């Protein structure tokens, strides 16, 4: 078991975001855009889901792009090339439904840019015109610009503080595209829930079909526990097996955001204990 999922490459993209290549030939062969893995870094560790940001079937690796937010991601960020993670399972979730829609706008907010990358690539390969909007609070948080450029026909960058690209939110950029008469056939939005909520509210107004990728708290990732449940169109869905992508116009984002905060107190305690001075 040990030594199975070795870390092949590691690089910090920003002080809080790192990219890791992991040896996982069987998953690399099977995975499709939109799918994720669950890993455990060590034996006492929590199972955490992470999107497969890239993969190479021939070379047999996966790439993950991870934002340090708490104990597990912090611990993970301290592993080095040559170390192994104790458990890695995937590919999980349903792949993105890829077809030729016409003009597809892919919106990635913050760390959400990483999972939107394979989707942009697959949409482009299917013959869509892909316009990507990358948003971050500030310049340093806009990651993977080059890769997204290569996967898209056009990219637009927004920062909240105007330090890079257009000043404003991703929704402002989307509104501008619509105002400029771009015919948008599909929007794919991945990022903080609040961003996905407002993108969905905007696209609803224009009746543009919208896919969002939800990052609820998970345990098993196989539909066994129900921890990841959300309300979509009035029905309870399990994000790990029914998703992670859903029709953004139907998702109850407020409930989802509330559920994401379920363990904030304990998460703080865990982090505090793990790195008392450093977070």
């Amino acid at each position, binding site marked *: 078991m040990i030594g199975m999922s070795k870390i092949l490459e590691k690089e910090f993209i920003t002080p809080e975001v790192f990219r890791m290549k992991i040896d996982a030939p069987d998953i690399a062969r099977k995975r499709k855009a939109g799918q994720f893995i669950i890993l455990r870094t060590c034996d006492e560790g*929590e199972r955490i889901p992470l999107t497969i940001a890239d993969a190479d079937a021939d070379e047999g690796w996966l790439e993950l792009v991870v934002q340090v937010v708490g104990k597990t991601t912090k611990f993970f960020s301290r592993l080095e090339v040559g170390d192994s993670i104790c458990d890695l*399972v995937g590919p999980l979730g349903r792949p993105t439904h890829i077809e030729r829609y016409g003009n597809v706008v892919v919106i990635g907010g913050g760390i959400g840019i990483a999972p939107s990358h394979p989707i942009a690539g697959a949409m482009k390969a299917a013959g869509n015109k892909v316009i990507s909007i990358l948003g971050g609070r500030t310049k340093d948080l806009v990651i993977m610009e080059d890769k997204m450029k290569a996967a898209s026909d056009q990219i637009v960058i927004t920062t909240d503080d105007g330090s890079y690209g257009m000043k404003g939110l991703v929704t402002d950029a989307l509104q501008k595209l619509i105002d400029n008469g771009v015919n948008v056939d599909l929007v794919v939005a991945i990022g903080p829930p609040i961003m996905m909520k407002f993108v969905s509210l905007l696209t609803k107004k224009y009746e543009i079909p919208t896919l969002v990728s939800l990052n609820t708290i998970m345990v098993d990732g196989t539909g066994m526990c*129900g*921890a990841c449940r959300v309300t979509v169109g009035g029905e309870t869905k399990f994000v790990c097996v029914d998703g992670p992508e859903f029709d953004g116009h139907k998702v109850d984002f407020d*409930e989802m955001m509330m559920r994401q905060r379920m363990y904030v107190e304990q998460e703080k305690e865990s982090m505090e204990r793990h790195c008392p001075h450093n977070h």
Partner: protein
Amino acid sequence: MEEEKKLTPRERLKIPPQPMPEQDPKERIGNVDEVPYGYDEELARTEAMRCLQCKNAPCIAACPVEIDIPAFIKFIVDGKYREAINKIKETNILPAVCGRVCPQEEQCQRTCIVGKSRKSIDEAVQIGKLERFAADWEMKQGEAEVPDVKPPTGKRVAIVGSGPAGLTVAADVRREGHEVTMFEALHKPGGVLIYGIPEFRLPKRIVMREVENLERMGVKLERNKVIGKLYTIDELLEDEGYDAVFVGTGAGLPLFMRIPGENLNGVYSANEYLTRANLMQAYSFPETDTPIALVKNVAVFGGGNVAMDSARTALRLGAENVYLVYRRSRIEMPARIEEVHHAEEEGVQLCLLQNPTRIIGDKNGWVNAVECIKMELGEPDASGRRRPVPIKDSEFTIDVDACIVAIGNASNPLVPDTTPDLETNRWGNIIADDETMKTNKRGVFAGGDIVLGAATVILAMGQGRTAAAAINEYLKTDEW
């Protein structure tokens, strides 16, 4: 034992059932250690002497795997514990598990002549406890003997799921010399025995030991492999070169009640709650990383073993009030009597003939109360039990900070969904032939909860045995 031989049946019938010593209820809710300590030799042999060694022992047929019960009990009387455990293992590879968790009072012990004579099932020969004794004795002797494995046949069998059904198939198929790979979705093997049934009822080292024994026989275990995702059943058969597949994926799909407030924070399925506690060891948080709600007042909905396990786990996680809300009365409770008794002893408060109607949250979206309605029993329903009917306008609320929904599981759809030509019934259970556990798909067998719906360990094992025999036959003859 000289004096033993002299006992007449009448004298045997006079010996009362030997109770198993147990941890004190007040102490045990402060730890996760096993509740009953097990018999020592003297208790075991006294209990074993109660058996009348009936000629056509009805207890045998009442055990789903037909253990030769009088034979193994006789060996215990004679102090021949090695022979006793070997006798049991002829038909049951998980005696330490079954001795602990089988609903014995509904199976082997229900038909016992001693119980009948003493006019109480509770007074039957304590077959399960004796089975546990023999298994525990063996464990104390060190490593178990590895069963003989026949020379390699060149055939390969994939087993999907490592619960009791999968474990049983693995042993029986491997013994014939076939190569066996067991695929498990989670990071630990054992199925419900690991993630569901709590440590205080079934210590995890017992399950791990059985899995290690299988590995020593040469069974290959692939953890973290979700079939249906990493490989489909068809890919196992066509691309990965397996000659047969056994599907034992269990009933892991939690049912919810579809009442308002069910997605509030603090509302768990029993599967999630127990998985966090057992598999992820949330009871050691923050030494371990997985959190769980640590609250004072907890409501559990349901009346089966799963509900009892959840309620007793909540106590061990520090809850002061644990309410077990069940819509029928005590006699209809599907949980084992012993478990209900243990739960009450530990302080679980039974709220019978009540049903939750709505879960109420605070401004942060966390549960703070549950509204229930009182019920009364009406006419018998299809199951023969009297149907509970709500009493109009009898709603009331209980203050709670967490709710655990333990009303049952449906079958996990991952495999059927990705194997479209595999026949399932309207509940999503895979359809398999009783005699062979063959599905409609050539080379594919299924058994355990994925076929039976949520059932029991021993029934899952029984189907595993049947399937293994048919798999061995199929690999020999290539006839479907």
